[in-house]
């Protein structure tokens, strides 16, 4: 990851910037809505967050080495809506297909149990219910740390 950040610094113009977006660990929620009414809200069973920890360590390292300077950062909510649990799971399965990390069977079992509860609530609610997956993203602008004379 640090090597990738070094390469990015190389590819950026001296007055350019890097925008990093990554998830905030343990921030995800699942909701069921019917119109504006929330029928269900629960934390989504979190992964161990190791990938995010590694990403944040890499970012901290390049800042410490003064390759980049953090200019600003913030957080935002990203919500994904689906009309069924199956649709939501299919969507995430496509994304997770690229995750080459080790599988955690206990975590998968917790998530499957939660999806079953969500499905039950949606079935009972009938037409118009939708499931929403909320996650929080952290966004950071980092500028290459160049000498002033390079900008002239």
């Amino acid at each position, binding site marked *: 990851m640090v090597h990738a950040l070094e390469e990015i610094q190389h590819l950026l113009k001296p007055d350019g910037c890097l925008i990093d977006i990554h998830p905030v660990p343990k921030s995800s929620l699942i909701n069921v809505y019917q119109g504006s009414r929330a029928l269900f809200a629960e934390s989504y069973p979190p992964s161990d967050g190791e990938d995010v920890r590694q990403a944040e360590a890499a970012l901290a390292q390049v800042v410490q080495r003064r390759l980049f300077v953090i200019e*600003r950062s913030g957080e935002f909510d990203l919500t994904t809506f689906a009309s069924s649990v199956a649709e939501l799971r299919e969507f995430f399965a496509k994304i997770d297909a690229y995750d080459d990390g080790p599988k955690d069977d206990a975590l998968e079992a917790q998530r499957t149990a939660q999806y079953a509860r969500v499905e039950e609530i949606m079935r009972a609610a009938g037409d118009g219910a939708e499931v929403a997956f909320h996650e929080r993203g952290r966004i950071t602008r980092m500028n290459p740390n160049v000498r002033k004379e390079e900008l002239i």
Partner: protein
Amino acid sequence: MTIKVDPGNNEPRALFDLADFNGQRVLEIGCGDGRLTWRYADRAGHVTAIDAFAESIARAKENIPDELKDHVEFRHIAFEDFAAKSESSTFDRAILSWSL
């Protein structure tokens, strides 16, 4: 109903709050199926969006809006390979899109 991701546009709003994309030359690393790319590309001068996964890039190419075709280039390539073949000081903006 199809899947709706970020219907409130919170992610592009956060992006535009941090950087100006008007006329900029942008590299997006880990663009996936182009979900975020579509939301800023109309402002950019040129976008090179890369991803190491062929299926994602195929979906992005398939779904690219006509009006963006002339200035968005999707490439199936790993970042290390892309960096090795690219010249330095090429891009105004680089985006690591949930991909570091």
